[in-house]
């Protein structure tokens, strides 16, 4: 039954991308639609003749935008390969040439010609004045660019790259291009922006002047009463938060695994908190407790007759809030590590007559060291990147993330200062990221084999368990009070002033009326709430798809530059949201990719912020699937795309669900990048809440936050139910992969 290979007739994928290119050029509006990506009003509004909506072919035919005409050449060239064999060298050559030339031309014209004609003076000198201009690229340009990219990919596949696997080559090129466009390009723009003079030229002096600013690097708080620079403040705060979260995380991990503590499941539920809590909400609760009119403050001032102070605003408040918010993350990391220490190693030490304390100190703790470093660095990066808490609680304690915000949004509007600050912030987090990878080397990816370790972890030594229990209990109580405060606070009329209970805040935010047979969403929060849900719903599947595809490529395929590829896709993890926000503004408010003020930019920022988590989740579950599962599909005649779809994806259901819900929830709680990217039309819940906080409208802010937490708790709960069910199927499934004889 030898398959009579259809090498002569053109491959359907090839035809698809050739057609897509022509559709992009002939039919779709070439430039971006003002009303937004998802609006289709243009179909009835002058298309295709109106210049705003016209396809490229129409524009060129009318003698406009003549620089688009050369695109016809790379569009026509691929037609030549339709009747050729794949093995014909010309097949690969033509596709590579057409794809590369077309893509390069698109980029060149996009950057060369902007809203004021030529973008560069030397082009004007070379070719004379242009007398025409162009705006951001739209559907047509996007589709044509994809067409060129994937034709190029098919060309290199035909030349034999990655065994001639079109799907893998296309996926790798696709991901390289989107990561370049949406991670590296904005960061490059950001770097450049740090050198821009007021006249629009470039100068090293600008960078030097802004970089040496004493507001960044001053150390006067050490020597006297002055204020320290934002860089030192951020660094100091991040180190303390990193250390404290690591210690507390370890404490909880020990309680959860090395003690007779009975409510371990409840403890584990703690790990869900940071995912479903918008970061600044903790800050709000702290204000309710320790602020000027906070309950604790009130209690002590009544008791001792001291005047309430604003001590909480500044370093102490931000630190407490961040430690509360990020301890569960450290716990999440460390519980895996503490459990991963093989009991047999500890038992071996015990049989050698080491006391429990000696075992803990000499065996368990050193084995956990990489995990501790990991937890510290996560806390460090989170603290550096946090925007909400410093904004709410920071007072005079300037940190980099808020300084960046004020440089862009505030009265100073100083792009290059924002860029310089962002570069400093980025250097810190990338430095930490780099240090972590250097220090842990390959170790960070080795997982516990799960085989043969039937032992039980020894309990903690008694001398350790007393302080551990005390700290854990105190902290757990504090967390409960904080979350209690959040719920309670949402029902209080005016905190610390009028303590009557009321639904007022919920009503203001979420009231609705039945009117004319329809519902009118009269509450002030509905707008941002629906936008948030919509954006998160669009972003989640895209994030999961990008993350899992990347994970598939990293675990299942070998190609040149794989390590660089992995590094590139994980990099955005170390880029603070604030930096993403600023760099997106700098990169995408001018053609060729004009996205600011749209919902698309929010969706994209979420995809690249949350993709690394999807990658990690995907890698973790894919490395549990034996490679022979896909290899047997490949030998049975399914190509790699069919194998991915029919074998791998169905077995990855739990990872897919996890990635979906995680990216959905993160999209709803994120603030640091969002705050730069929202617009009047696309306002997100978090930025709306921050806005209320800035107006001292705490009641509404807290009511809205509580609602968000509940919505997300429901989402996570649904996930647990769904994944719980599928996991049963998978566990038995795994047994088949390694069953022993009967």
């Amino acid at each position: 039954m030898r398959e009579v290979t259809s090498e002569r007739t053109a491959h359907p994928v090839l035809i698809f991308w050739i057609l897509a290119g022509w559709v992009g050029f002939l039919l779709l509006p070439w430039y971006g639609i003002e009303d937004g990506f998802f609006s289709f009003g243009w179909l009835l509004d002058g298309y295709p003749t109106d210049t705003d909506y016209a396809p490229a072919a129409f524009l060129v035919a009318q003698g406009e935008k003549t620089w688009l005409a050369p695109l016809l050449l790379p569009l026509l060239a691929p037609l030549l390969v339709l009747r050729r064999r794949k093995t014909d060298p010309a097949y690969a050559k033509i596709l590579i040439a057409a794809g590369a030339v077309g893509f390069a031309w698109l980029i060149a014209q996009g950057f060369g010609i902007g809203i004021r004609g030529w973008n560069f003076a030397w082009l004007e000198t070379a070719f004379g004045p242009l007398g025409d201009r162009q705006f951001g690229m739209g559907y047509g340009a996007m589709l044509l660019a994809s067409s060129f990219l994937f034709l190029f990919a098919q060309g290199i596949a035909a030349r034999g790259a990655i065994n001639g696997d079109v799907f893998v080559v296309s996926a790798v090129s696709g991901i390289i291009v989107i990561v370049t466009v949406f991670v590296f390009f904005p960061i490059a723009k950001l770097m450049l922006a740090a050198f821009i003079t007021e006249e629009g030229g470039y100068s090293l002096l600008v960078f030097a002047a802004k970089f040496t600013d004493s507001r960044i690097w001053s150390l006067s708080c050490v020597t006297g009463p002055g204020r320290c620079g934002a860089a030192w403040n951020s660094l100091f705060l991040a180190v303390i938060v990193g250390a404290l979260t690591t210690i507390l995380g370890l404490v909880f991990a020990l309680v959860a695994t090395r003690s007779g503590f009975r409510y371990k499941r409840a403890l584990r539920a703690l790990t869900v908190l940071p995912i479903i809590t918008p970061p600044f909400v903790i800050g709000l609760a702290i204000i309710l407790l320790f602020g000027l009119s906070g309950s604790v403050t009130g209690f002590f001032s009544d008791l001792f007759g001291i005047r309430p102070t604003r001590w909480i605003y500044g370093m102490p408040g931000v630190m407490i809030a961040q430690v509360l918010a990020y301890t569960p993350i450290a716990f999440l990391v460390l519980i895996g590590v503490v459990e991963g220490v093989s009991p047999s190693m500890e038992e071996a030490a015990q049989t050698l007559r080491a006391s429990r304390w000696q075992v803990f100190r000499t065996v368990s703790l050193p084995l956990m060291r990489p995990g501790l470093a990991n937890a510290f660095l996560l806390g460090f990066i989170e603290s550096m990147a946090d925007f909400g808490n410093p904004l709410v609680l920071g007072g005079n304690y300037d940190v980099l993330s808020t300084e960046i915000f004020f440089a862009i949004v505030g009265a100073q509007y100083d792009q290059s200062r924002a860029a310089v600050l962002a570069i400093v912030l980025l250097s810190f987090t990338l430095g930490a990221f780099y240090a972590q990878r250097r220090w842990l080397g390959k170790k960070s990816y080795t997982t516990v084999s799960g085989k043969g370790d039937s032992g039980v972890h020894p309990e903690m030594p008694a001398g350790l368990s007393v302080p551990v229990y005390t700290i854990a209990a105190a902290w757990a109580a504090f967390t409960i009070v904080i979350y209690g405060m959040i719920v309670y606070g949402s029902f209080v009329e005016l905190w610390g002033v009028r303590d009557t209970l009321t639904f007022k805040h919920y009503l203001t935010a979420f009231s609705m009326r039945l009117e004319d047979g329809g519902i009118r969403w009269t509450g002030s929060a509905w707008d941002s709430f629906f936008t948030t849900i919509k954006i998160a719903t669009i972003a989640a599947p895209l994030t999961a798809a990008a993350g899992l595809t990347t994970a598939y490529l990293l675990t299942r395929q070998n190609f040149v530059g794989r390590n660089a590829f992995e590094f590139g896709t994980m990099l955005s993890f170390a880029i603070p949201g604030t930096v993403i926000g600023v760099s997106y503004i700098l990169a995408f408010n001018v053609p060729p990719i004009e996205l600011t003020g749209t919902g698309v930019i929010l969706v994209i920022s979420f995809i690249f912020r949350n993709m690394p988590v999807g990658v990690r989740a995907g890698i973790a579950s894919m490395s549990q699937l034996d490679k022979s599962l896909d290899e047997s599909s490949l030998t049975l005649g399914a190509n790699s795309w069919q194998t991915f779809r029919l074998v791998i994806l169905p077995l990855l259901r739990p990872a897919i669900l996890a990635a979906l819900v995680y990216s959905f929830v993160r999209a709803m709680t994120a603030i640091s990048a969002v705050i730069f990217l929202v617009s009047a039309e696309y306002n997100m819940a978090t930025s709306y809440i921050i806005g209320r906080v800035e107006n001292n409208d705490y009641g509404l802010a807290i009511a809205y936050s509580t609602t968000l937490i509940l919505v997300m708790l429901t989402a996570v709960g649904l996930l647990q139910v769904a994944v719980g069910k599928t996991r049963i199927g998978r566990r038995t499934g795994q047994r088949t992969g390694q069953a022993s004889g009967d």
Partner: protein
Amino acid sequence: MTTNMVGIEIKDLHLSFGETEVLTGVNLTIEPGEFFSFLGPSGSGKSTLLRAVAGFGPTPKGQILIGGRDIVDLPPWKRNVGMVFQSYALWPHMSVRDNVAFGLKERKMPVSEIGPRVEAALDLVGLLSMAGRMPNQLSGGQQQRIALARTIVVEPQVLLLDEPLSNLDASLRVQMRRELLALQRKLGLTTIFVTHDQEEANTTSDRMAVLDGGVIQQVGSPQVLYDTPANLFVANFLGTANIIDGVVEKDGAAARFVTKTGDAIAVGDTTVNSGSIVLRPQNISIVAKDSANSISGTVMHREFLGSQIRYLVDAAGTEIVIDQSHVSGETWQDIGAEVSLNINSSAAVVLAS
């Protein structure tokens, strides 16, 4: 079906993982319909070579021809080879029937044809009644049979088996390898079988290749490899061998192998001047002292193996293993006894050093 049997030719194949070369200059011809084994210790490159035929792993240099067509540049799904894995690799989310039908669906076979073919394949492995089960409801042996059915149902040109029996327990392993061979004969399917177990290779193969360090050491039938190993590695790897160094002395037509201790063993015609002599334990017998063509020594150790008794004899510093078949009631040599060894010189093989 036996009419379109194809042979496999591997020509000067080199394969590296990054910098390290794992296969070096592999040349091999496998006849149409042959049951061929790759035998070698763990890490010798057997799986790598098999996977290169299937299309997995780094692209090798050199040629792999199946039925005369070079397939090195083809992806796995275009090679028309079937592969069965050690882990069975049944997809846990599909029923037995869906697992077996998968390859046929991928080949766009009409649904009306798929059903009968799946049933025929399941019938062939004797598991037709299990069609509706999920893989995790089957025992290891059954899973392995389903994996086999899933592979042969698409009628591949070549069947590749990578240690398919090593996850089964001992008795099932013997049964399965007989079934496998019977099935292979019935289908006339050119088959490559990878194993590190010489018994498995010996009992099934028409011919086999012994690999070590990514290099083919020798190719031949099990008997040829055992009786006339081409080098010390093969001699040692297949069964037990006594290997004694020395030189060949020629005297007209007769040749003698003289060991370092001066003992002489008559050997047949050989081109080797100095090297080693390979003596299988069962080709040496313990005889009365001082007979001709013998070496004298002292019994050091004795093991009773049931059908045989194994002696370890010290002959002037060289340890020699001797297997005597055991006859009920016979008396054994005592430890410390002085004995003479008689060597069946027609079974001796002389290898150049």
